[in-house]
């Protein structure tokens, strides 16, 4: 609302950085590809070597796009949770959405031996993992929400979120006790997080659900701003609290749930990006924050992914480790610098 010119300038700069990060991310990898050929393959013309085109179009491009969706989606769902729960430490990870997704996936991968061979074929497919993760995250978020209606204390909600994570971990360890080595490995690899496993088909489905989540979050901009006043004021302004709360939670579980489902639980992006954005843009207005979080989330995720693939080497580090290594110090730095997290 205020000095919209400075905001549009910042957005322009961020957009530029996003583009640079996007191209850098695609240029880097275990195989060295000259920048000219990267560009050529993106616009569809031929490259010096046929394999380069293959690598770019079927591996690096979907991976970079996934990074953009994951970073922006997690950032936005973190922002929604922080506003809804009136807590600067809220985020999909803290409130147990990721734990819920893990439980769903654990039940599918590890529990298939318990449920028996009939379901095996169906259960182990990629799609069932996606559905299980989404369901798991939605159920946990619903449980947290129901508790949050009863308990007014926001710290209690956070602790309850942590408790859900503990329960999840317990069930997962029981399941792993009965699981085979192969199943265990599959589950652990899912937990590392990975942006690179998505085919174009999967990316398409991911994108559709992502768009749905983003649309709901955009439609919630007004109620999010109203909620900044606290629930009683929001009610006095005619806001239907129950409906907006449901919309915000639905959006978060669609975004965080699908992201976790397709790429595994990715830590800290959802918590750190909204705070970083508030620092840079110095506002609490969601009309500014939402697009800004989108851009920053995508940028940070692309950078994390570029680091994770360790340029010009054969190693690919777990993306989850990189986001934690980048995200946790950011949160600490923000706290030390500002002393207080205003939001």
């Amino acid at each position, binding site marked *: *609302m*205020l000095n919209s010119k400075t905001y549009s300038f910042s957005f322009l700069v961020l957009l530029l950085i996003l583009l640079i990060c996007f191209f850098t991310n695609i240029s880097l990898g275990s195989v060295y590809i000259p920048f000219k050929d990267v560009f050529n393959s993106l616009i569809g013309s031929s490259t010096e070597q046929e394999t380069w085109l293959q690598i770019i179009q079927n591996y690096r491009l979907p991976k970079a796009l996934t990074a953009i969706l994951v970073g922006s989606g997690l950032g936005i769902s973190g922002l929604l949770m922080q506003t809804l729960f*009136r807590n600067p430490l809220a985020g999909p990870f803290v409130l147990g959405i990721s734990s819920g997704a893990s439980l769903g996936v654990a039940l599918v991968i590890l529990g298939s031996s318990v449920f028996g061979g009939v379901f095996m074929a169906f259960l182990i497919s990629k799609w069932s993992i996606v559905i299980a993760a989404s369901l798991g995250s939605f159920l946990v978020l619903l449980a947290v929400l129901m508790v949050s209606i009863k308990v007014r204390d926001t710290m209690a909600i956070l602790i309850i979120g942590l408790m859900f994570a503990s329960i999840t971990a317990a069930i997962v360890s029981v399941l792993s006790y009965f699981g085979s080595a192969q199943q265990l490995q599959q589950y652990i690899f899912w937990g590392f997080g990975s942006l690179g496993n998505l085919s174009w088909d999967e990316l398409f489905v991911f994108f559709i659900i992502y768009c749905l989540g983003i649309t709901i979050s955009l*439609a919630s*901009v*007004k109620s999010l*701003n*109203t*909620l*900044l*006043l*606290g629930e*009683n*004021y929001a*009610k*006095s*302004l*005619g*806001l*239907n609290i129950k409906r907006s709360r449901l919309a915000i939670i639905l959006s978060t579980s669609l975004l965080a749930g699908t992201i976790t489902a397709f790429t595994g639980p990715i830590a800290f992006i959802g918590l750190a990006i909204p705070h970083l954005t*508030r620092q840079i843009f*110095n*506002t*609490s*207005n969601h*009309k500014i924050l939402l697009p800004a979080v989108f851009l920053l989330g995508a940028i940070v995720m692309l950078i994390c992914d570029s680091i994770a693939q360790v340029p010009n080497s054969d190693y690919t580090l777990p993306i989850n480790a990189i986001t934690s290594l980048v995200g946790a110090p950011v949160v600490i730095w923000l706290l030390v610098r500002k002393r207080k997290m*205003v*939001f």
Partner: protein
Amino acid sequence: MTNKNQHIILKTEDLSIGYQSKKVRTLVASNINIELHKGELVGLVGGNGIGKSTLLRTITNVQDALSGAIFINGKPIKKYPALDLAKVLSLVLTEQMMSKNLSVFELVALGRQPYTNWVGNLSENDMAIINNALSQTNIVDLKQKRCFELSDGQLQKVMIARALAQDTDLIILDEPTTHLDMYHKAYILKLLQKLTKETGKTILFSSHEIDLAIQLCDKLIVMSSNQVVSDTPCHLISKGVFETLFPKDLIAFDEKTGSFRVKK
């Protein structure tokens, strides 16, 4: 002072307030018959725990009445959809708002929420109303400040401006003078009086500043343990209502000065 022909903004009929759980029914006060007219400044006074907040919560539709009826502009309050009620009734609460990172302008602009479109874009008319609210509460120069930079007195003015921007017939404030120094207590109540005169809005506030309320209000609602009376301050003094307000061992009401004195 009260004119029979004046438009009645809020009216209660044999209202009983209290709390109803599954088994227990706790009656806080009953037989409440009050009428608030257009452009009146009305104070709600009474001792701690007498039910002022319960009454305010009931007439703002936050909690249900035990029995009786509440009308706003002649229409039962229960018949108002939430958004329509937000266009006739605005609140200033005691609770702290959640985000103090909002600028004063943004906060006051949130008062326009019931009127704006789905993204909350402000029209020129909205901007005019917001700027008007800012100038009526003398906070134009605070416009760009963030709420965490404000003093309690400034913040209260901002919250009043927000309620003004909501452009409702009735504004209800819950203890707007707590945490304020003597000067700002008088300042805020004087501001409320000015607003009723200038805008023709009806303002109801609860307060412990009985002497200030007696001096400034058009009408007072006095809640004591056995009755709820509403009348002009002068009539209430001559009826001796204020003597019944508190136990008599420590303080006494002085009719001449219209204030309470500590017994020597």
